[in-house]
């Protein structure tokens, strides 16, 4: 499972992607992934908001994750 990182999320983690290997315990849902991330990188808890996209669509915490999904961390957007 790979998780893409953008903007400040990339700076917090220090790379543009997190890979969970076969042996890792994979987050089962969007909510699990957020909890996992915030536990490992407390800086995520200080952001104005934290969203997750699954297959390039915003996903609620309840959405299940599988290892073939394209998953991305969406910190507060600021286009325009």
């Amino acid at each position, binding site marked *: 499972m790979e998780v893409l990182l953008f*903007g400040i999320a990339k700076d917090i983690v220090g790379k543009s992607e997190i890979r969970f290997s076969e042996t890792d315990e994979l987050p089962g849902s969007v909510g699990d992934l957020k909890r996992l991330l915030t536990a490992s990188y407390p800086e995520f808890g200080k952001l104005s908001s934290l969203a997750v996209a699954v297959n*390039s*669509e915003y996903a609620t915490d309840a959405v299940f994750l599988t290892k073939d999904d394209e998953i991305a961390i969406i*910190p507060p*957007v*600021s286009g*325009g």
Partner: protein
Amino acid sequence: MEKLTIEIVDHIDSANVYSELSHPQSGGICVFVGAVREFTNNEEVVALEFETYKNMALKEMEKIALEAMEKWELNKVLIRHAVGAKKVEEPVVVVGASSAHRTACFEASRFLIDTLKEKVPIWKKEIFKNKSVWVSAHP
């Protein structure tokens, strides 16, 4: 003639926008250009740097354009965002719409830029002389 123009580009050329939105049934064309401002909270901005999650950003931009076309009677809609480093006065985003009457294109253009800023996965870093900041990241 495409109704929708949805693009993420390296450089925005504002000169063509009018002809891109022109349409024989459009009496009104409204365009909004967002550009880099010299100062933010009295601090001098050297440049802005834009990053995007391109697949998703294009999808979200298209959703916004389609939503605008449901809300208003529009003949053409354009949303174009730049990525990379942009200096003061450079355009970073252009949105616009054309319609038979002017109310629709004004309201739609405002909706396009407001909703883009709220939903499209694009991130802006302000580069000052001595620091850089991801805009809106923190409360």
